C-alpha cells in the first residue's frame, strides 16, 4: 500500500515542487516551462492511475494522513489527503485543464519578461487547487481556499507595473477576504461543534448538528442553516455570485492563461465545490436552498445580459462565466449536486477553450482586445475560429455538444423540482431566458470577430503557433465528446455517489428517480419536449440574424435601445456602488476614526495642556518664594500657629 500513499501525495505535490524550484532557482525560460509542464504531466498521470485504482478497486476512498496539526485537548486536528469519487473527478478535470494551460502559456507568454515567475505561480496555483480538492479536513480546506485567492492575487497583479492591475488584484483579494471571514466563522463554528476538523467526523454527526440550534435575536436558528449561510457567503465571494461578482470582470487584467485557468475553470468553481462537498449541510434548510437558487438564477440571466454590450473579448467570456456559475448555483440550490459538478466540469472544458481561442486571437492581433477592431479572421485563423465555434455551440447547449447534456439536465431538474411559488417560476423563467441570451452574446463575438468585415489594420494575420493550437484543439474535442462520455458517471443507476453522506430525504430520492427516468429515456428525446432546447437554437438563429445578416439593425434602433444599453454597460451600477458608496464609506469611516483618533490624540494634547497648566501653576507657586526674609518669617509663623491650632483643636483641648 506504500506505493499508493506515495502516489497520492506526489499527485498533489508535483506542481508544488515544480513551482518552488522554478520560482526560487531557475532563470532560463526553457528550463522553467519544461519543469512546470513535466510536474503537471506527472501529477495528471498519477491522478489517472489513482482513478483507475479507484474504479477497479471497490470504489473505496484512498485516505493518506500527512501530519498532526495541533495536539490541543479534545480537538483532533490531523491534516491528510482523501481521494473519494468526488475528489478524483475534480482532480482529473483540474489537472487536465492545468496541464493544457501550461502548454498553452508556453506559446502565449514567450516574449514576456516575467516568464519564469508566471510558470512558478501557475504551478503553485495548481498545487493549491489540487490540495483544496484532495484534503480531508477543514483546516486544509481553508488553507487551500485562501491560497488560491492569494495566487489569483499574484496572477491578476502579474503585470505589476500597470496601476489597473494593482487596483484589480487588490479589489479581488479584498472581496475574497470578505467572503473568507464568513467562511472562517462557519469553519470555527463547525469545528467547535464537531470537536474535530476531519470531514469524516463532520459527516458522522451531521444529524447532531441539524438538531442543535443557537438563538440569535432570541429565536432559535438551526446550526446547519447558520453554517450553510456562512459557507454560502464564502462561496458567493469566491464563485462571484451576484452582489460579490464585481471582481471577476476586473480580474481580466491578468494574462489570458490566468483567465482561462483561474477565472474560468478552476478557482471560481471552488465555491460550487465547497457547497457540493457540504451538500448534506445545506440539505436541511429549504430556505437556504431557495436563496441559493434565486441568487444563482438572477446571476445566470442578468450577468449574462451584461455581455451583450461589452466590447472587450475577455470581459464577454468573463460575463459568460458569471452566468454559467449562476447555473451551477441553481443546480446546487435544487439539491442536484452531482449535476452541478457535471456542469462544472463540462463548463471548465468549453470555457477554457473559449478563453484559449480568445487568447490566440489577441496574440494574433498583437494584444488587441476590442472585438470591433477585429473581423474576418476566419480566413487567416481557421483552427482558432473552428475551436471557438465548437465551444460556443457547446456553451449555448446545442444537443450533440457536452454543454447541452449538463445544461439541459439543470433545466429539466429546475422545471421538475422548483417550488410552485412566484420565486420558483421566476427561477425557471430566468434560467430559460439565460439559455436564449447565452448564444446571443457568444455568437455575437463569433460573427463580429471571425465572420464580419475585416476592420483590423494588422494586415497579414498568421495562425498562432502549435503550442497554442494543440491544447485548444484538445479542449474543443473534449467540449464535444466529454458530455456524452462522462454522463453515466454522474447520472443514472450506476453513477458514483459524488456527494458524501447525503441525507436520503424524500426530495433527494424523488429528484434521483426523475433524473434516472430522463436519462434512461434518452436525454435528446426528453429535450425535444422541453422549451430549453428551442430557446438555445432560437438564440443561435437570432444572433445569426442580428449580427450577421442585419448588423445595421443595431445602429438603426439606437434610440429605444439606449437606456438598456446604458444600464448594461454600467453593469447595473454595481461598480458605481462599490467605488462611490462602499469605498468612500470605508475610507471616510477610517478618516473620521483617524481624525477622532487625532482629536483623541488632541485630547491627549489637552492632557498636554493639563501638564502645561501644572507647569504654569508650579511657576506661580515658585514666585511665592520671593527670597524676602521677612516674608519667610511671616509664612513660617502662620504655619506654626496653624499647626498648633489644628493639633490643639483635634486633640480636643481647645
Amino acid at each position: 500500500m506504500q506505493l499508493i500513499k506515495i502516489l497520492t501525495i506526489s499527485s498533489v505535490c508535483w506542481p508544488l515542487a515544480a513551482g518552488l524550484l522554478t520560482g526560487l532557482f531557475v532563470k532560463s525560460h526553457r528550463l522553467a516551462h519544461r519543469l512546470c509542464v513535466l510536474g503537471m504531466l506527472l501529477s495528471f498521470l498519477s491522478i489517472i492511475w489513482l482513478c483507475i485504482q479507484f474504479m477497479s478497486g471497490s470504489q473505496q476512498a484512498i485516505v493518506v494522513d500527512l501530519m498532526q496539526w495541533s495536539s490541543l485537548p479534545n480537538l483532533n486536528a490531523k491534516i491528510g489527503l482523501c481521494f473519494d469519487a468526488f475528489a478524483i473527478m475534480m482532480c482529473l478535470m483540474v489537472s487536465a485543464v492545468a496541464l493544457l494551460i501550461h502548454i498553452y502559456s508556453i506559446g502565449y507568454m514567450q516574449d514576456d519578461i516575467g516568464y519564469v515567475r508566471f510558470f512558478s505561480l501557475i504551478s503553485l496555483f495548481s498545487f493549491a487547487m489540487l490540495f483544496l480538492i484532495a484534503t480531508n479536513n477543514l483546516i486544509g480546506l481553508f488553507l487551500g481556499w485562501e491560497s488560491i485567492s492569494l495566487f489569483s492575487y499574484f496572477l491578476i497583479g502579474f503585470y505589476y507595473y500597470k496601476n489597473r492591475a494593482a487596483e484589480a488584484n487588490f479589489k479581488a483579494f479584498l472581496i475574497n477576504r470578505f467572503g473568507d471571514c464568513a467562511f472562517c466563522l462557519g469553519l470555527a463554528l463547525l469545528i467547535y461543534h464537531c470537536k474535530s476538523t476531519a470531514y469524516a467526523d463532520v459527516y458522522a454527526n451531521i444529524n447532531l448538528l441539524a438538531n442543535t440550534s443557537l438563538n440569535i435575536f432570541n429565536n432559535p436558528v438551526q446550526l446547519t442553516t447558520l453554517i450553510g449561510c456562512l459557507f454560502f457567503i464564502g462561496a458567493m465571494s469566491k464563485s462571484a455570485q451576484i452582489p460579490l461578482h464585481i471582481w471577476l470582470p476586473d480580474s481580466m487584467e491578468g494574462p489570458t492563461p490566468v483567465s482561462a485557468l483561474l477565472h474560468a475553470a478552476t478557482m471560481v468553481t471552488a465555491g460550487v465545490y465547497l457547497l457540493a462537498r457540504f451538500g448534506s449541510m445545506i440539505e436541511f434548510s429549504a430556505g437556504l436552498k431557495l436563496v441559493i437558487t434565486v441568487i444563482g438564477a438572477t446571476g445566470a440571466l442578468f450577468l449574462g445580459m451584461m455581455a451583450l454590450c461589452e466590447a472587450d473579448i475577455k470581459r464577454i467570456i468573463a460575463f459568460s462565466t458569471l452566468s454559467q456559475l449562476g447555473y451551477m448555483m441553481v443546480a446546487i440550490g435544487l439539491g442536484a449536486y452531482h449535476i452541478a459538478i457535471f456542469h462544472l466540469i463540462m463548463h471548465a472544458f468549453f470555457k477554457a477553450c473559449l478563453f484559449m481561442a480568445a487568447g490566440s486571437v489577441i496574440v494574433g492581433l498583437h494584444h488587441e482586445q476590442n472585438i470591433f477592431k477585429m473581423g474576418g479572421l476566419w480566413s487567416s485563423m481557421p483552427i482558432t475560429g473552428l475551436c471557438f465555434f465548437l465551444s460556443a455551440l457547446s456553451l449555448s447547449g446545442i444537443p450533440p455538444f457536452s454543454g447541452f447534456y449538463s445544461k439541459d439536465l439543470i433545466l429539466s431538474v429546475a422545471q421538475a423540482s422548483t417550488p410552485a411559488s412566484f420565486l420558483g417560476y421566476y427561477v425557471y423563467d430566468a434560467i430559460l431566458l439565460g439559455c436564449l441570451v447565452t448564444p446571443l452574446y457568444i455568437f455575437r463575438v463569433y460573427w463580429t470577430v471571425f465572420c464580419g468585415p475585416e476592420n483590423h489594420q494588422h494586415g497579414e494575420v498568421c495562425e498562432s503557433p502549435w503550442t497554442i493550437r494543440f491544447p485548444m484543439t484538445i479542449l474543443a474535442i473534449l467540449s464535444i465528446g466529454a458530455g456524452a462520455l462522462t454522463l453515466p458517471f454522474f447520472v443514472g443507476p450506476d453513477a458514483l455517489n459524488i456527494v458524501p453522506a447525503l441525507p436520503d430525504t424524500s426530495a433527494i430520492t424523488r429528484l434521483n428517480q426523475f433524473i434516472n427516468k430522463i436519462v434512461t429515456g434518452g436525454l435528446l428525446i426528453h429535450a425535444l419536449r422541453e422549451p430549453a432546447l428551442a430557446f438555445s437554437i432560437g438564440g443561435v438563429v437570432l444572433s445569426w440574424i442580428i449580427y450577421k445578416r442585419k448588423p445595421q439593425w443595431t445602429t438603426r434602433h439606437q434610440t429605444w435601445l439606449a437606456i438598456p444599453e446604458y444600464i448594461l454597460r454600467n453593469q447595473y451600477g454595481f461598480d458605481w456602488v462599490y467605488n462611490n458608496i462602499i469605498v468612500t464609506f470605508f475610507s471616510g469611516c477610517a478618516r473620521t476614526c483617524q481624525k477622532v483618533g487625532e482629536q483623541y490624540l488632541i485630547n491627549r494634547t489637552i492632557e498636554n495642556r493639563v501638564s502645561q497648566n501644572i507647569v504654569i501653576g508650579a511657576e506661580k507657586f515658585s514666585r511665592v518664594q520671593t527670597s524676602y526674609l521677612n516674608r519667610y518669617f511671616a509664612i513660617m509663623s502662620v504655619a506654626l500657629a496653624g499647626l498648633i491650632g489644628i493639633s490643639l483643636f483635634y486633640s480636643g483641648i481647645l
Partner: protein
Amino acid sequence: MLRSIIILTSMMLVLTAFVGMIINRRNLIVMLLCVEMIFLSANINFVYFSRFHQHVHGQVMALMIIVVAAAESAVALALMVLMYRQYHTVDSSKLVNIRG
C-alpha cells in the same frame, strides 16, 4: 498661680519676638535681636521651673543657653559684617539676589 504667670510672661516674650521679626521690614540686626529674645524667653521658663521642680537642671540649661546664644550671635554678626562688605547695607529687602 505664679506658674501660670511665668508661662504667660515667657509666651508674651516669644510672641513679641515673633511679631518683631515679621513687622520689622528692614533691619537684619533687629531680626537677630528678636531671635535672641526667643532664646531668653525660654531661659525664663527654665530658671523658674528648675526652682519649681527643686533640682538644678533648669539652671544648668539656662547657662548653656546663654553660652550658645552668645556663640550664635557672634557668628551671625560676623556673617553680617561680611554681607555688609558686599551689599553695603543691612536692609534685608536688598537680600534678593537669588532668583528662580
